[in-house]
């Protein structure tokens, strides 16, 4: 069983890009790989990349599966804001940590369920279905916090953002746990195959006996849960909830991470680990730009440049002219006659 779908050759660009960005950072900043242990927690630029990349990586895990079903979830940023708002408000009101966590995650689950029902049952185009919650969600989050920036002092909740487990920062631990659980769910069962089947052709997969509404709802619910965890991390990290700005535009970063990770927006095969690698590439670039003393203003342009290069490499027009490894197909153009995960994911 492999975690990322097709053969190893296809993953090389992503890992290569991550290594290249990290090496570039190292050249600019010789101490980049220096890691030290202090007060029982690891510190260093590399740890910082992992830690700061955690929220987008979490979103990317959920987003990957949504995109694999040929959908997209624009509401994840707003869901982060809702989950963070609930956590901060309830903690401020004196609720215990388990209750707070349960309520925040339940909110994420409900948001995902709403999106899933719109897409699967009412058959609304995913961009539009999730646009509703993207617009209204921030309003709901502000409703919860009553427009204030709610802060709290509870060390128990703050631990999720700034604590550490076996010297590893909690956001990184949580991301690894969510990634592992997700990978187990989709790759150790036939679920991953079903998700890819729905993405390639919803009608055919329904004809082949896949319960498409259930698969779609499950995927959006999982995406909502991932977003809720990301929202908890961000709120716990800053010890407060800002309904206006928490997770703002992170949906775009998450989509970017998934695309950089090589999952096609046209649905079908997906790579969870590669999406996380994509999120880390983006974060490593952000850190690199900051370390190099470039103005952070260039950040967006560099991001756009990377996005365009990755897209060009995936473009059907361009791949026609490139030598192609045996058996590989231009992504998204030709529907393979066999199951889309020819290289891996055998249950």
């Amino acid at each position, binding site marked *: 069983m492999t975690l990322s779908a097709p053969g190893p050759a296809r993953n090389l660009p992503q890992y290569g890009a991550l290594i290249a960005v990290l090496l570039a950072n190292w050249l600019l900043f010789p101490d980049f790989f220096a890691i030290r242990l202090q007060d029982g927690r690891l510190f260093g630029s590399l740890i910082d990349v992992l830690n700061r990349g955690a929220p987008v990586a979490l979103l990317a895990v959920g987003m990957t599966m949504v995109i694999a079903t040929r959908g997209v979830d624009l509401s994840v940023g707003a869901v982060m804001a809702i989950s963070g708002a609930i956590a901060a408000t309830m903690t401020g009101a004196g609720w215990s940590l388990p209750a707070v966590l349960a309520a925040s995650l339940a909110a994420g689950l409900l948001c995902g369920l709403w999106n899933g029902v719109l897409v699967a049952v009412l058959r*609304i185009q995913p*961009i539009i279905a999730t646009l509703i919650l993207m617009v209204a*969600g921030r309003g709901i989050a*502000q409703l919860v916090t009553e427009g204030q920036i709610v802060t709290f002092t509870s060390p128990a909740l703050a631990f999720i953002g700034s604590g550490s487990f076996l010297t590893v920062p909690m956001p990184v631990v949580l991301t690894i746990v969510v990634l592992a659980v997700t990978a187990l769910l989709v790759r150790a069962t036939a679920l991953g195959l079903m998700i890819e089947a729905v993405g390639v052709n919803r009608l055919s997969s329904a004809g082949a006996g896949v319960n498409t509404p259930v698969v779609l709802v499950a995927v959006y619910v999982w995406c909502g849960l991932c977003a809720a965890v990301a929202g908890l991390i961000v709120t716990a990290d800053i010890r407060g909830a800002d309904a206006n700005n928490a997770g703002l535009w992170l949906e775009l970063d998450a989509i970017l991470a998934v695309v950089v990770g090589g999952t096609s927006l*046209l649905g079908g095969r997906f790579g969870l680990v590669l999406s996380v690698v994509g999120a880390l590439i983006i974060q490593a670039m952000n850190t690199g730009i900051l370390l190099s003393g470039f*103005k952070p203003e260039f950040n*967006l342009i560099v991001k756009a440049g990377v996005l365009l290069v990755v897209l060009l490499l995936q473009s059907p027009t361009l791949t026609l002219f490139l030598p192609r490894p045996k058996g590989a197909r231009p992504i998204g153009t030709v529907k393979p006659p066999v199951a889309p995960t020819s290289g891996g994911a055998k249950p």
Partner: protein
Amino acid sequence: MTGALQRFLPLIVTTAVLVVGFLICAAQFPNFASWRVVANLLTDNAFLGITAVGMTFVILSGGIDLSVGAVIGFTTVLLAVLIEHGGWHPVPAFAVALIAAGGFGAAMGGVIHVFQMPPFIVTLAGMFIARGLGFVLTTDSVPINHPLYGELNDMALRFDFGLKLSLPALLMLGVVAAAVVLAHWTRFGANLYALGGNRQSAELMGVPVARTTVAVYALSGLLAGLAGIVFSLYTGAGYSLAATGVELDTITAVVIGGTQLTGGYGYVVGTFVGVLIQGLIQTYITFDGTLSSWWTKIAIGVLLFVFILLQKGLLTVWAGRGGEPAEA
């Protein structure tokens, strides 16, 4: 249901919502039903309306343009830098801004067509680039103090019965009128609907797909540039973070206006009404004074949901009559 009624039903419903909404507001606040409120509604939403017209064309062609908000922001910064730092006269600066914005849109359209990439992601990259270029020019908010700006802001068309239309409002009304003509009485408009309805059929019928795709994104960029000029007039400044989230407001207006996001069906006038409905909600909340601003977002979200459901319902009815299958 007759054919014409069926075709115009979403438009009729949207317009009815606007009228009923306005009547509710007027019943609740005695000062609401005044020409001043109407004029402000038009002026305050002028940049949104102009942008939404471009977005309607893009969506009619089956695409989407996420870069418009960033292009507005970039245009305001470019104008401020040219006029205040470069000492340019505003008129050539306007021309340069429009050419830059239109060219930017055309480039995105070209990339979308040539490399067959999803418009969603290409225009997302365009959004990053336009915002980034704005940041690179300056991260400060630069006030524009040229005397022409004051003169343009004082310009207004006054009617005897009390309506006073500002320059932004007039520009928006002009753009909407021109867009209606372009969409319904020109070859370009027909090509656009054909392309959005079914790209392959359009290609087989001889619609110049490449030219139409590039033109529609160029038009959207151009109108976003014009909206940027209006925005800089309205705020009297250039700021690279201006108009964040406008792409969503415009898409919302287009959807509320009854245009289908899958392309090929919809009306520019509907979008205009959709913009006014959003403006009306905001005005209502301002008038009320006790409601918090977040109710705007929730109300717009609910409206969006209701209109999408309405569209789905209509499509299902049509499909039942042997029309196109309703897969959206």
